[in-house]
């Protein structure tokens, strides 16, 4: 039977093996012969060693006796454990921590020197101690540094002096000692270290070299592809590194500029202090002069480029003179003659008014939040398709996410437009702080970045409104942002406008009879009329506005007190020059107008106007306006950005005024002339002509002199008149009419800028044109 199963199956590890006690299987021995079926497993030892005498003896002893016998164990060299000085060598005060020991990272990095002083050193140090002060640790540190500072070549004495912080005498002593010791030593280093592998591979078999790095041996020969790839990687690395260098360089420049800015600002501040210019009048004046110069290039210089400067200027509110000067030059070169307006003194720049914001300007944006500004406008332009209109974070501002779900549902939009028709935003009487006047009916809107825009509406009561004395209103409405009036108490006019759609207002057929002034006043006082007056915002609030606007608005920030004799007068000569040019320009304009009128329907490209003419056009506009202002002292004084409120700008979305005025009439100034008929509305034109307050003529009275102004006066007058009806329209300035060509915008801009630069022009005058700035 046993023979049958001689060929035992292989042992199956997954098969259960019954466990027996031998005594239960008396017949087991009968089967013993086939046990060899289980293959012998290797022991895992080297064969040679496996056969070693002592091991075999131990194994057999174990099999015989079932356990190890003391005299059968494998003999090993003996060890002793009776070091007598052990107790004194190691302190015996160690307490076992209660918790498992957890090694803190880096806790092993002690600053202790690796070198341990030996008895020779001890003798030397003891001797040295008589001469100078040195501790054992100090000595060890010195040797340690010397050793670690030495590669193939020993550290020299001068190097040692650099390496060691001790005084020279000590260094000399220790160095000499070390050099001697080092020379006498066979070892590679006084700090005993394991031999390192050599790079050339010659140490592969050196038994004393240990712990070789496991990096694969370089196999450049075997894969050249790898070579190529690494070469490319190196190139890329180099590129990246050099880019980093460039960026750092730029940062350096930027930081330098910031420092310069700081110093300049400080200087300005000190100067102002010396001059007692506490109100900022002098500054404002100087600024105005500066403004004269700056915008002149706007039309033709690439927008972004220009913008960069402005933006930067704006950020700091002070542009460096450096940037300013070249610009001027550029302009003059083109013009071939110096403008009278360029007054060298005008370049001094500084904050218009010293206010809290100016302090904040030293909270410079940190390097990472501000892209490099200097010298790279080109590059930035590429990366930045939005150009001047790109969103830029401002330090210290909080931004909220856009309400995606509420686009169009503005609180000021009437219900049928999907708006909320919030009562706070319905049309109401509005008074601005500067000029301090009731503006008539207007409603507020929130523009980008939290700017408050005012949409004005025309009503038949306008005249009455304008005559309202703000002072009386003051007492009537203490609350700046007036509380909702008792419902239903709105006057007919107010209620009408409160719910006006532009469409409604456009038909004015149902004009109610003008009411008595006092009646209205009463109504206001009784809070039957909504009346809005802005809080007196600090001037710098304007900073939140759109950059382009902001830049320009700087000039407006001058307090009204600024105007006056103190302003820098033009010399007669300069003026004369200018006037001559104007005459020339206006002739051209007239010609062009006629041309235009001939083919009014066709759009005329704005590009025909060169920079120079644009400038002159702008000046012409100003001039005429001022003249006009002398005569018509009234109306339409729109509160400028002073109040942090934008006056309405011309276009209402989808409702272009095509009828009221012909473009040519509306635009006596080249900007209008050149723009396509559809794109520049009388409204805008109107806004562009700042109504002058009476006191504005101080410095400009003599402008009336030139005969040529008459020619423009007429169309201008027209435009103004025409503009009034335009004002009736409810404007939604936010929507930039797509029809408005870029050139038109530029020109309008130019015109506005031109206004700004007139030092004599009161700030309020300058304010309104700003609104034309494209949004």
């Amino acid at each position, binding site marked *: 039977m046993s023979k049958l199963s001689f060929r035992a199956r292989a042992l199956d590890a997954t098969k259960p093996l019954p466990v027996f006690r031998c005594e239960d*299987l008396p017949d087991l021995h009968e089967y013993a012969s086939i046990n060899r079926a289980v293959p012998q497993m290797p022991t895992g030892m080297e064969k040679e060693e496996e056969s070693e005498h002592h091991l075999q003896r131990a194994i057999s002893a174990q099999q015989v006796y079932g356990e190890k016998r003391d005299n059968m164990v494998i003999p090993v060299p003996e060890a002793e454990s009776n070091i007598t000085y*052990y107790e004194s060598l190691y302190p015996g005060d160690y307490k076992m921590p209660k918790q498992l020991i957890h090694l803190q990272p880096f806790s*092993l990095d002690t600053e202790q020197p690796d070198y*341990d002083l030996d008895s020779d050193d001890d003798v030397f140090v003891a001797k040295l101690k008589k001469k100078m002060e040195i501790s054992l640790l100090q000595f060890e540190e010195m040797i340690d540094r010397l050793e670690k500072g030495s590669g193939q070549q020993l550290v020299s004495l001068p190097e040692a002096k650099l390496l060691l912080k001790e005084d020279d005498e000590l260094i000399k002593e220790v160095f000499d000692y070390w050099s001697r010791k080092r020379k006498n030593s066979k070892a590679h280093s006084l700090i005993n270290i394991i031999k390192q592998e050599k790079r050339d591979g010659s140490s592969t*078999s050196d038994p004393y070299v240990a712990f070789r790095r*496991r990096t694969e041996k370089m196999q450049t020969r075997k894969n050249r592809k790898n070579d190529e790839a690494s070469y490319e990687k190196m190139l890329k690395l180099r590129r990246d590194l050099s880019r980093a260098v460039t960026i750092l360089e730029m940062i350096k420049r930027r930081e330098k500029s910031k420092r310069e800015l700081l110093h300049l600002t400080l200087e300005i501040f000190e100067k102002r202090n010396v001059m007692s210019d506490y109100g900022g009048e002098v500054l404002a004046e100087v600024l105005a002069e500066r403004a004269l110069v700056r915008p002149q290039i706007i039309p033709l210089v690439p927008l972004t480029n220009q913008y960069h400067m402005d933006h930067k200027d704006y950020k700091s509110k002070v542009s460096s003179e450096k940037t300013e000067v070249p610009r001027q030059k550029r302009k003059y070169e083109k013009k071939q003659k110096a403008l009278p307006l360029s007054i060298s003194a005008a370049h001094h720049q500084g904050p218009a008014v010293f206010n809290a914001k100016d302090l904040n300007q030293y909270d410079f944006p940190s390097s990472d939040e501000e892209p490099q500004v200097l010298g790279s406008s080109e590059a930035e332009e590429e990366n930045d398709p939005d150009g001047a209109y790109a969103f830029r974070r401002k330090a210290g501002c909080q931004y909220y996410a856009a309400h995606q779900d509420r686009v169009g549902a503005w609180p000021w939009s009437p219900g049928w437009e999907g708006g909320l028709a919030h009562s706070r935003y319905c049309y109401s009487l509005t008074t601005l702080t500067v000029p301090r006047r009731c503006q008539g009916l207007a409603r507020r809107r929130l523009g980008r970045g939290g700017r408050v825009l005012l949409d004005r509406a025309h009503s038949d009561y306008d005249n009455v409104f304008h005559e309202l004395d703000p002072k009386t209103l003051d007492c009537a409405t203490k609350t700046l942002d007036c509380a909702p009036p008792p419902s239903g108490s709105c006057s007919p006019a107010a209620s009408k406008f409160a719910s006006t759609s532009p469409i409604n207002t456009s038909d004015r057929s149902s004009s109610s009879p003008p009411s008595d002034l006092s009646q209205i006043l009463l109504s206001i006082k009784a809070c039957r009329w909504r009346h809005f007056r802005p809080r007196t915002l600090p001037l710098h609030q304007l900073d939140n506005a759109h950059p382009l606007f902001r830049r320009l608005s700087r000039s407006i920030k001058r307090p009204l007190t600024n105007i006056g004799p103190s302003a820098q007068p033009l010399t007669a000569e300069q003026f004369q020059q200018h006037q001559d040019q104007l005459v020339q320009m206006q002739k051209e304009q007239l010609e062009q107008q006629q041309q235009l009128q001939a083919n009014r329907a066709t759009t005329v490209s704005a590009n025909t106007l060169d920079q120079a003419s644009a400038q002159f056009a702008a000046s012409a506009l100003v001039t005429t306006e001022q003249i006009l202002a002398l005569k018509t002292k009234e109306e339409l004084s729109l509160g400028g950005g002073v109040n942090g409120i934008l006056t309405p700008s011309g276009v209402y979305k989808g409702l272009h005024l095509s009828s009221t005025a012909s473009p040519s009439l509306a635009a006596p100034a080249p900007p209008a002339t050149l723009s396509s008929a559809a794109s520049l509305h009388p409204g805008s034109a109107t806004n562009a002509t700042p109504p002058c307050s009476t006191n504005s003529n101080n410095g400009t009275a003599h402008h009336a002199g030139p005969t040529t102004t008459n020619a423009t006066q007429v169309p201008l007058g027209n435009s103004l008149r025409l503009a009034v009806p335009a004002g009736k329209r409810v404007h939604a300035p936010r929507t930039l009419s797509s029809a408005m060509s870029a050139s038109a915008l530029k020109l309008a801009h130019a015109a506005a800028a031109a206004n700004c630069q007139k030092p004599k022009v009161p700030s309020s005058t300058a304010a309104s044109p700003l609104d034309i700035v494209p949004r």
Partner: protein
Amino acid sequence: MTKMADSGSSVEIVEGCRLPVLRKNQEHEDEWPLAEILSVKEVSGRKLYYVHYIDFNKRLDEWVTADRLDMKKLQFPKKEAKTPTKNGLPGSRPSSPEREVKRKVEPVPLVPQVPPAPPVPSLPTSTEASPAAVFPAARETNAFKSREDHEQISSLTTNGTARRLIPSQPGRKRKANCGPTDEMIKVLQYNKPQSASVFLPPPEDSQDSSDGIPSAPRMTGSLVSDRSHDDIVTRMKNIECIELGRHRLKPWYFSPYPQELTSLPILYLCEFCLKYLKSLKCLQRHLTKCNLRHPPGNEIYRKGTISFFEIDGRKNKNYSQNLCLLAKCFLDHKTLYYDTDPFLFYVMTEYDSKGFHIVGYFSKEKESTEDYNVACILTLPPYQRRGYGKLLIEFSYELSKVEGKTGTPEKPLSDLGLLSYRSYWSQTILEILMDLKPDNGERPQITINEISEITSVKKEDVISTLQYLNLINYYKGQYILTLSEDIVDGHERAMQKRHTRIDPKCLHFTPKDWSKRGKW
């Protein structure tokens, strides 16, 4: 052959000579085992001979004086380099004075003569087993001996700069046990200038890569079984004595401590950081700066005074290297060729008021491709034969249990390693078998896989242990396990001696998946 009338001895004893050498056995009786002279040196006028007792482990090699040599039975290395013989340990001769002489005499080194059968029974095998050829003959000092063997010719380049041996192949029996990975260890090139004098006409070897760059050992594992690149230097102990804490240890094997320290009578080690120092003075200075009182790792186990610390060979290179250097003194097959990065070190300590004293350790590859759960394992000599080894082994399997894997120690095992592991395996398996309860009247039964799963001992080791214990029997058409009375008694006695055990509850260990961590 080379005789030199030299300093009084009529016969010059050179490396490679064999003769009986007096030594005391464990019973302190004299015995005269046959030994081979590996090296000769002269200290203050007296000659000292480094002898390897044939068939004894290398750890018993020692320097002996001339009076312990039985010159009457001296056998010179055999001249006719025919088949090699016993030179399992070929190749090692350090420089000897008569080198020049020899050179004149015989241009070609000889293979020592085959000695008569050594007293030890195992001799025949060993003879066979040693493919002498594999050893590089060139030693730095004397280039002469090279031995080749029939089956494989070791090739030496004549120019002397490099000689390469081919590991090989058929002749090499010692590889039999090793995993496949072991086989391919290449012999290193010997690049010593001195070897230029070697005159072995080498057949040009074709096997090695042509670029002349010697190949390095494989990068995995911690042990080397192919000794073909051993040279005389590594065959001899180089450190006389190591002082570690309260202990003085006599190293068993070569360890690559800085060479300038090898001539010291005592090498001092800091007990806690294991830094090596050349003098007691240095040690004292070091101790003022070293504030370690335990191995610099995380304690992952503590019960009573026994703790285990886990040290990452990459994060704590200094300690890991120091530990390896120390361990190499007692582990023949350990290689320190490469850095310690891919290993974790588990150091077992015993606490007293001076700190956590190292008792032993084992290292472990972070990622093992061959189910190794231990790379090197060592109980320091002063703590040996007291159950600590078993504790270390037990702990290594506890880690494997946590990891949910089975594991096995890296091969080759040493003699002591084999005994310890066998003993551990036997006890562990017997423990399970004896605990098996009859299952509702049926014979209790168990599969090998089940044993493996319960113990984390790799299946092959379970089988080999069952075999070794002779428990597997084929009975009536099936395999059964039988427990004899002897086995049961022996086991019970052995278990009584295992008073200290690893308590899994005291282990705080979370295995990491090293494969996800880039390069260790």
